[in-house]
């Protein structure tokens, strides 16, 4: 059980953020303390009511819930998480501020997610998170239309780099994708473990994020390819976190 120290007070103006003495603030604390200056978006999604998905990064670009059911149990952190119905639900995290902050050449996208048994074998594409300019410039963590088969995808300038991996249970897992044009590397992680070899040969990211194509739990705001399960603690940084940092953030406790 992790307890944060007296010097690590909750961020100002954020009701619901774990504070001193709260039980198990591990996930929140690790994300918020991992290169905080590079953390440009962080949605714990532990709200119990309302349409606003608070952004706990220093950038404060809130998201907007559509249709989700708030208040379900989270990934073992004693907090809530929203469920997504696989039909009409998403969290629209686009904002002009986020579009200005996001760096498609240097990034980390990570989140916690659990899938229903139906999602794992329903033969449909479903997205945990989708960050995009257009089809030729996007960062995606998704389930494919093949049973239990997931993808981490990075497309820049039309160059598609992706890695598939399997996951076949309904437990909470940590998902991440990091990319660095400078280092010519894209890495996909599940539960802090890199999936397959490092992807190389990155294209050139171009364009600004599009207003209707940056969602947690769906491909877009239509919504298409909606997640069927639970998602929490979605965080985006403007730097590729190291494998050690990803492994640390993937710890539950």
């Amino acid at each position, binding site marked *: 059980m992790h307890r944060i120290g007296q010097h690590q007070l909750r961020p100002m103006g954020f009701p619901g953020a774990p504070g001193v003495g709260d039980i198990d603030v591990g996930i929140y604390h690790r994300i918020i303390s991992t290169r905080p200056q590079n953390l440009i978006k962080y949605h714990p999604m532990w709200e119990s009511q309302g*349409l606003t998905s608070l952004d706990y990064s220093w950038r404060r670009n809130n998201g907007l819930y559509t*249709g989700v059911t*708030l208040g379900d149990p989270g990934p073992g952190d004693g907090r809530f998480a929203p469920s997504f119905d696989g*039909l*009409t639900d998403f969290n629209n995290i686009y904002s002009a501020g986020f579009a200005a902050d996001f760096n498609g050449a240097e990034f980390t996208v990570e989140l916690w997610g659990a899938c229903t048994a139906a999602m794992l074998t329903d*033969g449909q594409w479903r997205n945990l998170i989708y960050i995009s300019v257009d089809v030729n410039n996007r960062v995606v963590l998704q389930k494919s*239309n093949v049973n239990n088969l997931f993808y981490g995808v990075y497309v820049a300038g039309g160059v598609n780099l992706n890695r598939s991996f399997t996951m076949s249970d309904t437990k909470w897992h940590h998902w991440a994708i990091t990319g660095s044009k400078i280092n010519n590397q894209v890495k996909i992680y599940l539960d802090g473990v890199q999936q397959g070899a490092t992807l190389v040969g990155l294209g050139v990211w171009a364009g600004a994020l599009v207003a209707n194509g940056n969602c947690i739990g769906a491909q877009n705001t239509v919504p*298409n390819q909606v997640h069927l399960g639970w998602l929490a603690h979605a965080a985006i940084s403007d730097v590729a976190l190291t494998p050690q940092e990803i492994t640390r953030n993937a710890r539950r406790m």
Partner: protein
Amino acid sequence: MWHGYLGIEDIALTAQQRQQLIDWFKGLGRPQIEQPAHFCHWRIRLDGKAAIFEALFEEANITIENVKARLAQIFGVDPATISHAVVQTQYGPTVTFNRSGEKLRMIQFGGSPGGCTWMTSGDAARAYVKANLAQWEAPA
């Protein structure tokens, strides 16, 4: 109040009529926003001619007679001149509204309000989308 999923399909509405009807459906559901799932929201079919709505609906708002009254208002006709037929499908009761030909189809996913839960309604709606996937999802 009933929390569930409704589907509508434009059979032969004009674009203006369709938009008026969609705007009306968007206004249904619980106005309070404590729980996003209760607030009326929707997804549109790829061709723009069908939609699925989810909300905490007032049952009286989604009766056949009430939808018929709204259609009559849109058409500028007497509601008595609009007929309907109900067919039970595997996704729930499907109502086809007719005024000089079929105009609109409505599905109460999972069954009539009071007769199904939010989960069973959602299961029916998900099964419907899966059975018509090419119409609702663009290729990945």
